[in-house]
């Protein structure tokens, strides 16, 4: 406690000493007015000249550079945007053309295929017809042949049968005529 007390006293003493030096306002003492005015004008002039001639143009330039840079960049960005838009348009055009071409190719190939198929079909049909005609001819030939064969066989059988039964031999021409007659009558039944 004693220590704090003496500390406070010491501080008060210092403070009183300070107050002793503070009489009146030093601002109103004209002793150094001229000096202050002189140094103010000198220092301020130097400051003004160095700012006006050196630092402010530098800052101004830099600010303008930045503004120009920003403007240029924006212009560039716009240009690139337009460029990309035109590219997109180009791309879309190409895509559209490609689509059209695809449709064209599809139709063309379809048509050609159709034609191909048609022609091949025709050829095959003709061949088939030919084959059919040939086959029919063969059939009719066979039929004719078979009829004459059958007649011959019938004649032989008939002559054989007559010979066995009657023991006589009839002349062949009469048998042939009779078989022909009967077969003509009955042919419709078998064919």
């Amino acid at each position: 406690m004693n220590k704090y007390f003496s500390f406070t006293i010491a501080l008060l003493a210092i403070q009183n000493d300070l107050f002793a030096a503070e009489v009146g306002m030093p601002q109103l003492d004209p002793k150094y007015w001229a000096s202050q005015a002189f140094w103010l004008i000198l220092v301020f002039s130097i400051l003004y000249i160095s700012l006006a001639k050196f630092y402010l143009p530098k800052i101004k330039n830099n600010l303008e550079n930045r503004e120009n840079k920003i403007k240029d960049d924006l212009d560039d960005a716009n240009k690139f945007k337009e460029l990309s838009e035109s590219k997109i348009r180009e791309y879309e055009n190409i895509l559209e053309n490609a689509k059209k071409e695809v449709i064209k190719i599809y139709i063309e190939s379809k048509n050609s295929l159709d034609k191909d198929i048609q022609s091949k079909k025709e050829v095959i049909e003709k061949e088939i017809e030919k084959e059919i005609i040939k086959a029919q001819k063969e059939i009719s030939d066979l039929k004719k042949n078979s009829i004459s064969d059958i007649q011959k066989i019938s004649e032989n059988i008939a002559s054989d049968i007559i010979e066995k039964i009657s023991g006589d031999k009839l002349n062949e021409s009469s048998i042939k005529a009779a078989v022909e007659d009967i077969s003509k009558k009955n042919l419709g039944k078998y064919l």
Partner: protein
Amino acid sequence: MQQFSVHKIGPEIKIAGIDLSFTNASLFMVISASAILLFLFIGTKKKEIIPNKIQLIAEMFYTFVAKMISDTAGSKAKPYFPFIFSLFMFVLFCNMVGMLPYSFTVTSHIIVTLIMALFIFIAVTIIGFAKHGFKYLSIFVPSGVPALLLPLITVIEIISYLSRPVSLSVRLFANMMAGHTMLKVFGGFVISLGLLGGWLPLGFSVALTGLEILVAFLQAYVFAILTCIYLNDALNLHH
């Protein structure tokens, strides 16, 4: 008020019988100006598109003052931009340097602020007469005033015009001096109330220091903007 006292540093310089010795006031003027130059030197050293912090602050000061001038005085005031900028920076840095303990506040001296204000007043008057000739006197005769009141208004206008340097200088000087005196008084309370009661004035001192930093900036701004307004009157003559 020891903090406001001026004393000689170094040898006595006398020119034509006038004492122009280098004093602590001169020293702090030099310190403030050097601080501005150093700050701008660092701020403009690297001219980068994306600025670093100090460059950004320098550019913010630039655009701040430029905007202040174009807002209050229009585009005609552009040639006076370097002067207003120097003025603003000088007052601001003097105020701010004065906030440092054991330093000297240049702007707390009436002679300093008076010389600046007188220079502005005279320069503005010369600019006004150079731009408009005798028509500049119409600044004292506001339009739209009844004829009966006109003589009175004119007298008042003349007085207000002539008191501009006084109001401009006293505003800055008184603000700075009052703030520093108040800090001093509260500092004295801290010591005299000791360890038991000194905490309250200490808190006040801290708060006042913050306030004083605000005032330092504000007064520099006010000083500059009033200069702009006076310049505006001289450049664009209208009421």
